[in-house]
């Protein structure tokens, strides 16, 4: 068990998060509020929540671990975020908010259906979301469990129940509204943690001069702009993460949560700026852990993912407590968003895709039931799934980017984009991701030059969307509904 300060801060964090999540139920008046927080929040809450949803536990643990292992290679992921939020706002932000003005949009399949007028697109997208959500949540179960188990000194099972029980309850009660409001609070904690860590890391290592010189004299590759990865890996990471943000369901959903169209104005700057601050945590925790090892203050780490923990063991306990709260915030904020998105896909979109619709007034209650079932299923999958969790866990960022991005980025910006192209692109994204999953995780093979497979899936899905649209006509040009056409012309 950790020090009393860390335990106290973590417990206070849990209590506050739970309280805020439950408080959000006051905002719920309609099914659209529950599933999409439709026009419920202003710019500050939504933008910080958008950043918090995108910054997952990976940024706190996996990112610094990659810096420890590879040097600067992985930083091309996190540095891409200085433009990624801007791209999201420019390419889809305005269009989604305009459509939300005229339609009760609460899910991404709602938008896809409005644009492409197709149950097949709605159904395929909903299935993609549910698959991705379960895969993602499965990976978070053990991560969250191990963190809390170590912090509170409880066994793994109890720790999993604490983290995901709290997340499940507030998400079940207030859906996406709870997710966004708690994301806001969790985002603030992450920001405090990031700034604190930056200051402490620089003071501890003697500033950038002491930090990089010490590491570079031991191994110069660790401080060059590429690190130990390949250029194709670093550059493809920059591309996928710069443009792929707008295909992430937990970001795109934030646009129809905006109360007023004017709330769009500062959103990109607030979200992007917040993420840039938290990038410093990714960067400097990783390098500070390297510095600790190189300067002989701690022994070499057995696993790169221990970099963050090793760093936290060497900073003041009150700061470590805030960073641990930030790590839990990162895990829980992304998880609650995914639970809400998966629930909406099951309750709203899959029935609509087969021509049925749950009575509007009953949707919220069904949403609560499905939230509980989905979370428990994901917990069981994460706990007992073993090897399968590791395999499906790869269906993360790139999977969502390749499935969703072509529909939104091309579909909402090009009247010639067709229904047939959307179905082709979505199907290809699903198939390619599964093929690459088998190729890499089951057969143990790799694409050449370190190319991440989701980069290839994303490019092919985008190309399919463009090429097929040139030869088909469904739901394009004159077939567009008047409000969709108007939203695309502004």
């Amino acid at each position: 068990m950790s020090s009393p300060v860390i335990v106290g801060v973590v417990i206070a964090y849990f209590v506050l998060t739970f309280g805020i999540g439950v408080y959000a139920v006051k905002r719920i008046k309609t099914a659209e509020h529950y599933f999409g927080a439709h026009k419920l929040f202003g710019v500050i809450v939504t933008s910080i929540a958008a950043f918090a949803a995108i910054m997952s536990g990976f940024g706190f643990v996996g990112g610094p671990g990659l810096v420890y292992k590879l040097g600067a290679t992985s930083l091309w992921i996190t540095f891409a975020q200085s433009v990624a939020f801007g791209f999201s706002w420019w390419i889809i932000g305005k269009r989604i908010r305009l459509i939300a003005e005229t339609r009760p949009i609460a899910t991404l399949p709602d938008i896809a259906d409005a644009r492409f007028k197709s149950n097949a697109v709605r159904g395929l997208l909903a299935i993609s979301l549910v698959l991705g959500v379960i895969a993602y949540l499965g990976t978070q179960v053990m991560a969250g469990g191990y963190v809390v188990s170590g912090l509170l000194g409880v066994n793994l099972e109890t720790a999993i129940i604490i983290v995901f029980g709290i997340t499940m309850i507030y998400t079940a009660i207030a859906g996406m509204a709870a997710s966004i409001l708690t994301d806001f609070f969790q985002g603030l904690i992450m920001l405090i943690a990031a700034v604190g860590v930056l200051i402490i890391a620089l003071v501890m290592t003697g500033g950038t001069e002491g930090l990089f010189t010490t590491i570079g004299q031991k191994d110069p590759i660790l401080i060059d702009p590429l690190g130990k990865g390949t250029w194709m890996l670093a550059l493809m990471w920059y591309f996928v993460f710069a443009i792929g943000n707008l295909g992430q369901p937990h970001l795109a959903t934030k646009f129809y949560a905006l109360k007023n169209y004017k709330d769009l104005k500062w959103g990109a700057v607030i979200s992007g700026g917040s993420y840039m601050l938290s990038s410093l945590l990714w960067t400097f925790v990783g390098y500070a852990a390297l510095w600790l090892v190189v300067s002989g203050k701690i022994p070499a780490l057995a696993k790169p993912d221990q970099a963050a923990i090793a760093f936290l063991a060497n900073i003041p306990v009150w700061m470590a407590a805030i960073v641990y709260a930030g790590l839990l915030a990162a895990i829980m904020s992304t998880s609650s968003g995914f639970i809400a998105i998966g629930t909406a896909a099951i309750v709203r979109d899959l029935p609509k895709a087969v021509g049925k619709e749950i009575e509007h007034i009953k949707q919220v209650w069904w949403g609560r039931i499905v939230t509980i079932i989905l979370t428990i299923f994901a917990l069981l999958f994460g706990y007992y799934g073993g090897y399968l969790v590791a395999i499906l866990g790869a269906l993360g960022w790139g999977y969502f980017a390749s499935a969703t991005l072509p529909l939104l980025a091309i579909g909402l910006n090009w009247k010639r984009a067709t229904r047939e192209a959307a179905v082709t692109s979505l199907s290809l994204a699903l198939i390619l991701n599964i093929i690459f999953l088998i190729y890499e995780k089951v057969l143990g093979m790799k694409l050449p030059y370190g190319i991440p497979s989701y980069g290839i899936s994303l490019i092919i899905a985008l190309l399919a969307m463009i090429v097929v649209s040139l030869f088909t006509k469904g739901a394009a040009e004159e077939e567009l509904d008047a409000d969709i056409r108007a939203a695309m012309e502004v």
Partner: protein
Amino acid sequence: MRDNLILAIGITLFLMLVTALTNLWQVFAYLMAINLSLWLVLGAMKGENEMGPAIWLGVIALVIWVCCLSAIFYYWGVFKGEFPSYTIGGMHPGFFVLFPVMWLLSFIPVTLSYALLFDKWILTEESWREYLKKVGKSPEVEHE
């Protein structure tokens, strides 16, 4: 114009795919810079042909990416595998271009520009009212 932009995005994507699979990473990098700039232009333009500041934004972003990537590749090549003969605040010159130079400079035309151009170009009060009129919704309802 919008059709041409989409086609240009498609062509650069195809070339990126080819260069990725043949490990022509420097060519890939410049194609990526062009592709990202085209996405910015696509998002910033209005209707079918109204470019407004879109072209300028795209050009500024492209220049930043091309200059920064070139400098990163240059310094990486010069000091490959050795501790650099000079550093900037302890940082490898190539790393310094990646962070903080490219990190901060690219933020300006792609992210900060959105806030700066919102009222004048992206969604003016007038275009908002026009949109509401087109979709048959009164502005009064909006303010309730």
